[in-house]
């Protein structure tokens, strides 16, 4: 039993690539599509998710022995909602412009499946250290997922990266990339690429063994 359980470090690594929330679990698609028109927005969203996921995971892990099976989802939602509200107010106070740009998507973290999934799958069963590293791993994975899509969209759509001009004057912005269709196209292509690389690896792995 103990051997099958991944160590805290393994949990951290797993979240980043092997179990990447965006590319492998396909969770949290709403912010993935909606706030990836620019890197700044994507990274703010990732930061908010990191804060909420970390706090929710740690708290859930601390109270895991007190959870009643039929009330656990209620407790998760309550916990997540509280931390999301804190994050939302914080953004409104200290990053006002960004908070307006993200609009309803910050409050919508409450229903982001990544967080409730980690509470259910990991934090409600694992000690605090494991839950914390799991949260960090998944958040970094989410941030990488968002960053990959946002980079493509911002560079092609506005010729900028993090608001800095990276393309020359000759560049003509692809307007569609900052619009919703651009999000779907980019996600589809990147997801396809990720799967293609993954399946190549799996085949090689099968041949070797």
């Amino acid at each position, binding site marked *: 039993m103990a051997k099958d359980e991944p160590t805290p470090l393994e949990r951290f690594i797993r979240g980043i690539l092997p179990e990447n929330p965006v590319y492998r679990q396909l969770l949290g698609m709403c912010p993935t599509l*909606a706030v990836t028109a620019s890197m700044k927005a994507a990274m703010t969203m990732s930061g908010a998710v990191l804060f909420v996921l970390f706090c929710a995971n740690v708290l859930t892990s601390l*109270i895991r022995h*007190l*959870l*009643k099976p039929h*009330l656990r989802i*209620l*407790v998760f939602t*309550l*916990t997540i*909602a*509280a931390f999301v*509200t*804190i994050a939302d*107010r*914080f953004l*409104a*106070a*200290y990053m*006002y412009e960004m908070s307006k740009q993200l*609009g*309803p998507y910050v409050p919508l973290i409450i229903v982001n499946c990544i967080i409730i999934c980690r509470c259910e799958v990991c934090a409600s069963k694992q000690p605090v250290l494991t839950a914390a590293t799991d949260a960090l791993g998944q958040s970094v994975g989410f941030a990488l997922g968002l960053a990959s899509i946002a980079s493509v969209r911002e560079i092609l759509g506005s010729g900028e990266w993090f608001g800095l001009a990276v393309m020359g004057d000759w560049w003509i912005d692809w307007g569609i990339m900052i619009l919703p269709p651009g999000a779907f196209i980019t996600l589809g292509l990147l997801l396809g690429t990720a799967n293609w690389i993954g399946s190549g690896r799996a085949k090689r792995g099968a041949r070797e063994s």
Partner: protein
Amino acid sequence: MDDTEAGRRPDAGAAGKVMQKEKQKSNYLAQGWLVLLLAGGFAAALAAVQVSLSGRIEQNKENETLGRIGELVPGAIAGRKTDINGMTAYEALDAGGKRVGWVIKGSGQGYSDVIELLIGVDAEVQKITGLYVLEHKETPGLGSKIRDDADWARQFAGKPVAEPLGVVKDGGQIASIASATISSRSVCQIVNNAIKQFKNAMAGRDTEAERVGDVVPGAAGGRKLSVAGMTVYEALDESGAIIGWAVVAAGDGYAGEDSIVLLIGLDAAAEKIAGLTVLSHGETPRLGDRICEQAWLRQFKGKDANRPLKPTKSVPRAGSNEIEVISGATVSSRSVCRIVNEATARLKGGFGKTTGTAP
């Protein structure tokens, strides 16, 4: 042995039931305490966050308001917050410090939450010069266009403030956003209310006295009195003769304590209701707010002020004191009847005591 068990069973069964009930009761607490405790803890934490951050958030909003003044009022480069008879507004100043317009804040219910607007008007308060949505939580992609679609907001610029704005569908001048008619309507409504409020504040006028003519036909003005703790106006005709009374009455509505304020008109003898209008209310949009409809308010005219009004769900009988309630707004309709009844009874009591003003 069989005997003893059979003899005991009913007793044991009853005791068992009681015990089970006790157990269930304690179970609810035993199971729910964590949720309750967490809810309490989070509520306290959120309250602390709100207290410590709300000042900053308000400041952010105000800075944004001041930053938008240049867009809202042509020629303005700076703004100054002022208080006009209790209403907060921003003076829009040009480079020379001359006032070139005003920026007013308006807020009201939208489709999903309160919408906050900034409305620019010219210095004479004749024309709208700009509109900006400060805060909203309308549906992304539909209602959110009230802010995202700059062309839509631009429609408001140049509209005269004399006539209330409305969407084209309702016979107004503003093209509504496709699939977001309610959001569009709400914005028009908020603009209308804010401008009306601002104009009244600017004039510093007694808005209640002005409306005496609405509820007492033929009245040209009102003279303010206090009867039985209520504000009452003598309704005066052109020659200054008393032709009726207008009572300001507040009472509980669907939205809460004293949320409905009515102006009740009575004839000179205070025997019959001469008219009724709603000064303010907080009823549900599109349901309870129908108490403001003239067609419904007209029912009250001519009713006997000595007997209580009776709300009814059927068609009122001729000559009775019955008022037909608005379907979907029964509570609001009943509240209006009750407020009128209480006010007329109180007024009669007041007139009884103070000889001299008695009609």
